[in-house]
């Protein structure tokens, strides 16, 4: 390796590059597309993968009025990745007329549910609390909550967040165990989340008379752990922001197909907007990996020759 900067080879210079230039390059690669998308309003078209299509079909194929349990098992730290998919799935359920029951196994998940329901149902006065949607809120206990809900939901949740006993909530009429829901959705950032839902609540029903259909949305870090469960143990999976963008695209296309003059509000294109920074960020990462290898082998050859 060269000892003096003035005489150092290009490889040696690159080998000693201040890492902050890398951070700056990544910031520009992410920030510039955000500004471009923010100014132009353009987003990339998405080609849904089978796993995302499976998740979409699981919601789409349910009859109107079906009851969907949505567990938002994440906190603000992962909201940048998971909030768009939570919004998209809840919106899809609302567009299809499904009844939505929300809950969370994460202490900080309560405000996430409130924000999501306000975003999606804020301008839907026809969606009445108690009849069309209900929020059970947070319950401590992780797998314990799942085990209780398997046999009786009221064991884990005696009341909803408004302190109404479950037996007095119209939309939960006839719901005893978790298998009585038509679909379970978990949007999760880790433990306890989608993996535990598969293990504790979904898998035990697979050999029974009524298998519980399950859809998962997860962070990029968690997605590879969940892929083996697809398609036998889960109907679909939304992997990271890409999965959210594909799902958003499917929902928005369904809206446009039903009404070609419909204008999709920008708040329902959040994940699609994030795909441009993803593209440039990944291109930069690939370029840096290639460059790093070129520098590594270049220096090794140089040393071998010396």
């Amino acid at each position, binding site marked *: 390796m060269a000892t003096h900067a003035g005489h150092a080879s290009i490889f040696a210079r690159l080998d000693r590059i201040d890492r902050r230039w890398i951070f700056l390059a990544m910031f520009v690669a992410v*920030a510039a597309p*955000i500004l471009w998308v923010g100014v132009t309003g353009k987003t990339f078209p998405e080609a849904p993968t089978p796993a995302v299509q499976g998740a979409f079909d699981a919601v789409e194929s349910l009859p109107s009025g079906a009851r969907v349990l949505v567990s938002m098992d994440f906190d603000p730290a992962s909201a940048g*990745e998971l909030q768009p998919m939570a919004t998209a799935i809840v919106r899809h359920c609302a567009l299809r007329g499904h009844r939505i029951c929300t809950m969370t196994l994460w*202490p900080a998940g309560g405000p996430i549910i409130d924000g999501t329901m306000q975003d999606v149902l804020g301008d839907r006065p026809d969606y009445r609390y108690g009849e069309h949607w209900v929020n059970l809120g947070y319950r401590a206990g992780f797998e314990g909550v799942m085990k209780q809900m398997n046999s009786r939901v009221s064991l884990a949740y005696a009341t909803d967040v408004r302190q109404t006993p479950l037996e007095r909530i119209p939309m939960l009429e006839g719901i005893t165990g978790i298998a009585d829901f038509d679909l379970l959705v978990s949007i999760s950032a880790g433990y306890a989340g989608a993996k535990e839902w598969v293990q504790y609540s979904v*898998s035990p029903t697979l050999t029974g008379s009524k298998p519980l259909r399950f859809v998962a949305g997860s962070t*990029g*870090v968690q997605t590879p752990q969940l892929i083996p469960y697809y398609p036998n143990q889960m109907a679909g999976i939304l992997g990271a922001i890409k999965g959210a963008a594909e799902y958003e695209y499917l929902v928005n296309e369904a809206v446009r197909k039903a009404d070609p003059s419909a204008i999709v509000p920008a708040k329902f294109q*959040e994940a699609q*907007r994030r795909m441009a920074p993803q593209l440039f960020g990944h291109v930069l990462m690939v370029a840096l990996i290639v460059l790093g290898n070129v520098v590594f082998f270049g220096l090794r050859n140089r040393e071998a020759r010396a």
Partner: protein
Amino acid sequence: MSQFPGTSGTPGAPGMPADPAVARRANRLMIAVLAVIAALLVVRAWVGTEVGSGADAQVVHGYGMVFVEQQGAGHVQVPAAEWAQAVAADPAQQRVMVSWPRTVGVWAAALLTLAVLSFLWRDNPVYKLAESVVVGVSAGYVMSTAVWSSLVNQVFGKLAPGLTKAYLSPGLTTTESDWWALVPLGLGMLLLCRLSARLSWVGMFPLAFVVGVFSGWRFVQYVESDLLAQVATMFDPLYVAGPTAAATVGGTLCAVLVLVGVLTVLAYFFFSLEHKGPVGGAARIGVWYLMITFGASFGFTVMGRIALLAARCEFLFDDWLWLIDPAGKH
């Protein structure tokens, strides 16, 4: 700027300038860039940002302003354009106004975001402050949520429903005492004995209970969900019929790849036979499968991290600086 000993930002640390003079020049450059950005923001705030359109247009000076409209007893956030429209119609109106608490909230979020990002430059007191705030607020929030959700409703509410309803949780519906709640309460109290050196052995009992219960649950569920169900998947037909010829070929190829992957990775982790000959060949293919899996995991992780950075950038540019308005908030 002083250096913080033992931090990753010191000269000579991997990826940092080895020469202190270079580090000083980099610091000066950084300060100059930040000063230019700050000056531009001050100028822009002085000029103002136009909100609304046509005759209703108003100029807003400042950043991170949040406008709310009074609806019933509460306030709902509205776009700045609505405020401009309301002011144009009636300059003295009080229906739509700036929400200073929410504006301070946006500023706090923006400054904390910048403080956390400042770690990329190097470790510094501002980052430490932001880190402490996040940890403290998170711990406090989680603790208060757990106390009200578990201790008050699940324990006190079951043991003394009348008192709990009267003084702690007015919405409580339980009317009769459930003395079984004494069991978790007792176990919880015993767990606190771990804090005492003399009585810490008593805390082993609830700990053993928790470990035993979770071990039992996890063992059964892993066998059912991750072993038996996954083995059952291996018995699916290799020929996968699709709606088109391409889909059939693709599906069949995927099924074959999964089978080969399972067998070769198992061969890699099978140590009773020396990795030579066919077993060695299979193990080498298994290594490739593992590498591809790790690569895919790394790719997903990168995607997740970029998504989080993009979300924070969008917040800074949209909610705080008003450089963009993708969601029509202004």
